[in-house]
């Protein structure tokens, strides 16, 4: 199937194929130019046109055809002769100089036959007579400078695409005459036959072929990437859709109790999940559609679809933001209350993190944990506390004004109003155990199952009478305020090292201060 053009040669109408028309037009342009400086050029040209029309009519009638094809044009123009052969009659040989092959001005076109994106670089390359790859290199450099992409898009819009063969020849600066035209056309035919777009094997140096190869390879690479995007995108969408249903069921069934899922109010779970799903699903869909369009040029997508997708995405974003801000408002107010307990008196205290992990059997099953072996560690000896909440315990050690040691637990939590915040704080649990001189602290506050996270915190204040000795376990360092246990232990000490402190009138002091300082100094001197 070929596109045909209707032409009128001095009153006779012909249907002519596009390629054939271009050859004919170029031929006639050559003829007209040839006779430009001849007297009666118009008459001669008309005679020639009439004769061409007559020959076309004869050929069409002979073959019972309706459309002039390139063979007809070649036959007819051959009979009429190339312009250079006309000169036998010319009396003034100087005319010959002004005719024949005339050099055309180079024009800037986009070369879509040798393109990676829009053919801008190769077009510019043709115009300046530079290999496209150098222009591309410059383009990539400008890309990193930040002006590359907008500049490229502007050039893409401004520079016309080289559509016709005449355009392509003007782009490459080849003189537009019938010989070149045929050469160009034959090259193209040859190229199509051998599966290449342009067969300029002899005509152009090897480096050009290399550039072409790079271009083709780049195209192939882009297509490869496109195929990967489509494949992974489609799989991703499928998994996402499947995951959505699973996740909704799982979450609404209160199976997900870890942070940050336990922040979300139960009523918002489905909405938030759906909006998050939309926010991910739509861009992936758009990406897949775009990749399909790049890969298959004929794949049309209506703008309505894109707009629809954009609107849904924005709606998802809006709903998501709304609900997140609603959840945010649950953190408006903060409430606090304290529990003061007297500790048994002792000359010295051992402060340790409670090594017992509060994983009930039910929890262990929920988290799918083998209670005896969690990533190679024994869960019961884990000192990490429950891992479903951010760290929420802090410990401050002060000098007691009275002779009795005291532990104050300051619980705090947030809520939409003070009352709710206070209730939230009251539901939080924190445990300490005193056995003789040993104090075990939980590393976390504990929430009941299904309880929402509302920044429940416990601030422990331990008040110790003066001259009491404290042995503090290294693991408590991260909870301890004002002091650093690192100052009171040898280098490379294990986390269960007990550093020895004493309560003085000026607060806590490392007992073996001099020893460790000396050690530090000696290591520094080395």
């Amino acid at each position, binding site marked *: 199937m070929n596109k045909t053009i209707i032409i009128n040669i001095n009153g006779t109408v012909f249907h002519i194929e596009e390629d054939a028309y271009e050859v004919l037009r170029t031929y006639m342009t050559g003829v007209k130019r040839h006779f430009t400086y001849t007297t*009666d050029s118009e008459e001669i040209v008309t*005679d020639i046109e009439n*004769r061409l*029309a*007559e020959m076309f009519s004869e050929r069409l009638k002979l073959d019972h055809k309706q459309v002039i094809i390139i063979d007809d044009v070649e036959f007819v123009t051959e*009979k009429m002769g190339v312009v250079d*052969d006309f000169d*036998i*009659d*010319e009396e003034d040989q100087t005319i010959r100089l002004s005719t024949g092959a005339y050099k055309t001005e180079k024009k800037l076109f986009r070369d879509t036959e040798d393109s990676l994106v829009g053919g801008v670089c190769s077009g510019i390359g043709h115009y300046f007579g530079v290999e496209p790859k150098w222009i591309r290199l410059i383009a990539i450099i400008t890309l990193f400078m930040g002006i590359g992409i907008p500049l490229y898009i502007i050039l893409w819009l401004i520079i016309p695409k080289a559509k016709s063969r005449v355009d392509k020849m003007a782009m490459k600066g080849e003189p537009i005459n019938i010989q070149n035209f045929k050469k160009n056309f034959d090259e193209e035919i040859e190229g199509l036959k051998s599966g290449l777009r342009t067969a300029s094997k002899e005509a152009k140096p090897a480096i050009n072929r290399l550039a072409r190869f790079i271009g083709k390879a780049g195209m192939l690479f882009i297509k490869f990437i496109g195929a990967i995007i489509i494949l992974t995108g489609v799989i991703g969408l499928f998994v996402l859709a499947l995951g959505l249903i699973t996740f909704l069921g799982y979450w609404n069934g209160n199976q997900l109790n870890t942070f940050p899922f336990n922040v979300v109010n139960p009523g918002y779970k489905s909405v938030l999940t759906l909006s998050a799903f939309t926010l991910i699903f739509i861009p992936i869909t758009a990406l897949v559609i775009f990749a399909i369009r790049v890969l298959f040029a004929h794949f049309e997508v209506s703008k309505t679809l894109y707009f629809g997708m954009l609107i849904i995405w924005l709606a998802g974003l809006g709903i998501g933001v709304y609900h997140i801000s609603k959840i945010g408002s649950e953190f408006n107010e903060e409430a606090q209350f304290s529990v003061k307990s007297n500790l048994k008196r002792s000359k010295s205290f051992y402060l340790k993190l409670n090594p017992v992990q509060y994983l009930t059997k039910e929890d262990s099953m929920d988290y799918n944990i083998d209670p005896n072996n969690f990533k190679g560690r024994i869960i019961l000896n884990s000192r990490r506390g429950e891992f479903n909440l951010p760290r929420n315990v802090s410990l401050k050690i002060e000098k007691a004004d009275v002779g009795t040691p005291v532990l104050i637990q300051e619980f705090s939590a947030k809520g939409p109003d003070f009352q709710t915040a206070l209730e939230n704080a009251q539901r939080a649990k924190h445990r300490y155990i005193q056995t003789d001189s040993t104090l075990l602290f939980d590393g976390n506050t504990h929430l009941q199952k299904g309880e929402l996270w509302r920044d429940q915190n416990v601030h422990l204040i331990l008040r110790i009478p003066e001259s009491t000795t404290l042995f503090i376990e290294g693991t408590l360092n991260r909870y301890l305020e004002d002091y650093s246990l690192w100052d009171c232990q040898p280098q490379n000490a294990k986390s269960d090292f007990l550093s020895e402190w004493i309560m003085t009138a000026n607060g806590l002091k490392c007992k073996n201060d001099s020893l460790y300082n000396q050690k530090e100094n000696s290591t520094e001197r080395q």
Partner: protein
Amino acid sequence: MIVENTQTQMRKGILEYCILSLISREEIYASDIISELTKARLIVVEGTIYPLLTRLKNNGLLIYNWQESTSGPPRKYYILSPAGLEVLKRLDTTWSELSYAVEVSLENRIIEPTTEKS
């Protein structure tokens, strides 16, 4: 280069003379002139004929009539004008003189006939 120049000169003059002679025989169409010339082994492309005919016509040697054609646009059929006839007569004289001159010059030389183009 010189050879080519001479050839061109010879062909030029003779082509014009031949065309005038062909037209003198009967009303004739440009492409028929080509066929006749091809028959006479004087091969030119059609494009050569049109400027030449136009020039001869503008010099008053030819007249043309439009005639309807079954295939395509109307054709120009050429005949000699009285002035053309006069020119042809003079060219005839010139040619017989030249022909004699060539004949005498070529005497005792054997030229093999050739169908080759120039």
